């Protein structure tokens, strides 16, 4: 195996891992937001996220023949998904988590898992009554076009598509926007205050219930946006598709330091890269002395990703960017 081949493979891993990683990161933001404020792991987030993807599917279907610019269609799909997923998340908080506030921490965790299962089958039902199971997403024209040159350089080798660029761009914007919101606005300050000490912030005139609802709204809306990105990237989804990416995103959030917004982003990227790299690592068995790599087949990529998590947490228990104090966000 020559150097050029190795370089090509590594470059493809870098790009493939990036687009997978930002997807994990987008979902991880939803986990991290809710955890940051409530110290609650919202396991229903995978379903809130895939609900957004399903909404996106129906919007794209409805607008299929409309003579509308493709990007406008995408924006409509995103807004609709953010609205539905955000609302759904607020509803979940009201029905499943708020009545249990003050209960032991294990209790809302169990309801979160329960809500997740109820949502999965409800989504399955809602899609199933239309005689559907696997949804095949038809994207507006141009999204699946390949990009062959970038700044005059031939990049056809990377097999990048327009939709990959959109995904990466949206993820960047989301992180920037969220960072601005949390760190540089009054609302963000209130959120941080509630996260730090709910009772004292209440005494300072902050309505913690509405701040928590707001957090769920934003977290859900981001999840919905992520769902549309998922639908766009894979163009195929069903009511159960959220489980694997949701679990990976949760892992990414923990890896980066749960409750920390840049951490979620970093965790997603690390996970995406580790996973993609491990998926192809057996190719390097041709390099002298590395023949044992042939045994590491693609089916071990998840195992490797979780081993990476354990290793990182072993040396840095709060995650890559997490602070080892009780301070959140």
């Amino acid at each position, binding site marked *: 195996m020559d150097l050029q081949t190795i370089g090509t*493979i590594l470059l493809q*891993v870098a790009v493939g891992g990036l687009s997978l990683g930002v997807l994990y990161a987008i979902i991880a933001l939803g986990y991290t937001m809710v955890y940051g404020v409530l110290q609650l792991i919202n396991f229903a987030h995978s379903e809130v996220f895939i609900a957004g993807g399903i909404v996106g599917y129906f919007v794209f279907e409805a607008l299929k023949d409309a003579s509308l610019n493709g990007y406008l269609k995408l924006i409509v799909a995103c807004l609709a998904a953010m609205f539905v997923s955000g609302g759904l998340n607020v509803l979940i908080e009201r029905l499943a988590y708020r009545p249990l506030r003050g209960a032991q921490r294990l209790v809302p965790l169990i309801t979160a898992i329960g809500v997740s299962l109820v949502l999965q089958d409800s989504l399955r039902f809602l899609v199933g009554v239309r005689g559907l199971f*696997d949804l*095949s997403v038809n994207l507006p024209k141009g999204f699946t076009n390949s990009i062959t040159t970038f700044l005059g350089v031939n990049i056809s080798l990377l097999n990048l598509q327009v939709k990959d660029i959109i995904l990466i761009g949206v993820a960047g914007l989301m992180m920037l926007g969220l960072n601005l919101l949390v760190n540089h606005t009054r609302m963000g300050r209130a959120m941080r205050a509630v996260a730090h000490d709910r009772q004292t912030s209440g005494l300072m005139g902050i309505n913690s219930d509405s701040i928590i609802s707001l957090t769920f709204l934003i977290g859900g809306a981001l999840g919905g946006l992520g769902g549309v990105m998922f639908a766009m990237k*894979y163009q195929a*989804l069903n009511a159960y598709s959220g489980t694997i990416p949701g679990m990976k995103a949760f892992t990414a959030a923990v890896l980066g330091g749960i409750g920390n917004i840049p951490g979620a982003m970093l965790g997603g990227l690390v996970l995406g890269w580790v996973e*993609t790299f491990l998926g*192809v690592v057996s190719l390097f068995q041709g390099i002298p002395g590395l023949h044992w790599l042939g045994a590491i*087949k693609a*089916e071990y990529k998840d195992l490797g990703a979780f081993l990476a998590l354990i290793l990182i947490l072993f040396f840095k228990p709060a995650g890559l960017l997490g602070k080892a104090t009780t301070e959140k966000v």
Partner: protein
Amino acid sequence: MKKTALSLSILAALTLGSAHAATVVKIASISPLSGSNSNLGLQIKNGAQLAVNEMKAEFAKAGMTLSLVAYDDQADPATGTAAARRAAADKAVLGVVGTLNSGVVIPASAAVAPSKLTFVSPANTNEKVTDRGLKNMNRICARDDAQGPAGGDFVADNLKAKKVYVLNDKTPYGQGLAEQAEKAMKAKGVSVVQSEGVAAEERDFTAIITKIQALKPDAIYFGGLYGQVGPFAKQLRDKGITTPIIGGDGFDSDDLVKLAGSGANNIYFTTVAPPVDAVPAAKNAAAAYQKTFNQDIQGFGVMSYDSAKVLLQGILNAYKLNKNKVPTRAQVETAVRSGTFKNLTTGEVKFDKNGDRMTAKMYVIAVKDGNRSTAGTVNVIRK
């Protein structure tokens, strides 16, 4: 019971006053006529009905009034077993065509094995169906364990691939299929460049596609289901890789084309039910089916038509051996297992000692530009 049946038939013969008084002979069909599999189950019932209609005259000549009695098993083992018991309780029923689901035929055939009620199955592929060695259980379709080798042979012989990448979905179905295909390919000198698994729920193939790009195989064998293969094909074709993908009957769904979208090209899969264009001999049966039932015959209809003919010819053979008298169920059982049946749409049928067809066929379906066609047939020879 036997005595009364005998005396009743003598009585019937006497009252009609003729040595050739028509004796009622029935065969039964057991298949799902309700529920989500009912379109396939109906094909089984209608296919058997067609054979009965066709052979009625021949039976009448021998003094037998032939008819079909159709039972609905609802694709449920308990219902199917009850149906088999009801068929066994009807002394005029000499054999059964069915079922669709292996899970149904396994308990049903065992339940009526003591009554020696012969099954000829058009569709049950599970190995256990015949591996139990029941005397009354036969099938004319290929077995599950023929599928992987048939796919492997197709890759080597028809696609002429030298290097193959093998993927499986880590389920018993997908993994078993991929392993068998791999073995068959290696036996034909094809090199397997990599054989690995991917979780059945996984829809992200970034790493695997990068690998395929680097390994440049001539073909990809995927032991998996359409729900996963569709997105895989789409992502693969989006990267400009046109390498053929081949797999088993898990690909057989209209959703495959929907999910693969523009990637629904150069995909092949093996199946036991022939598309009608793959069996030219079924032309007459297809026309008769259309005329009788006002719909098109499909693979399982063809198979059921042949199953019923095997059973009916078996009954006629036993009739001759029984000195031109209506044979017993035991005689039918022996006649079906030991007979050679010709003039069938899917070729000659002869069973081995367990009731598996000696030369069954697997059909390879090709998906090109979203359309299906027959890419070839692979003979499955049992020794």
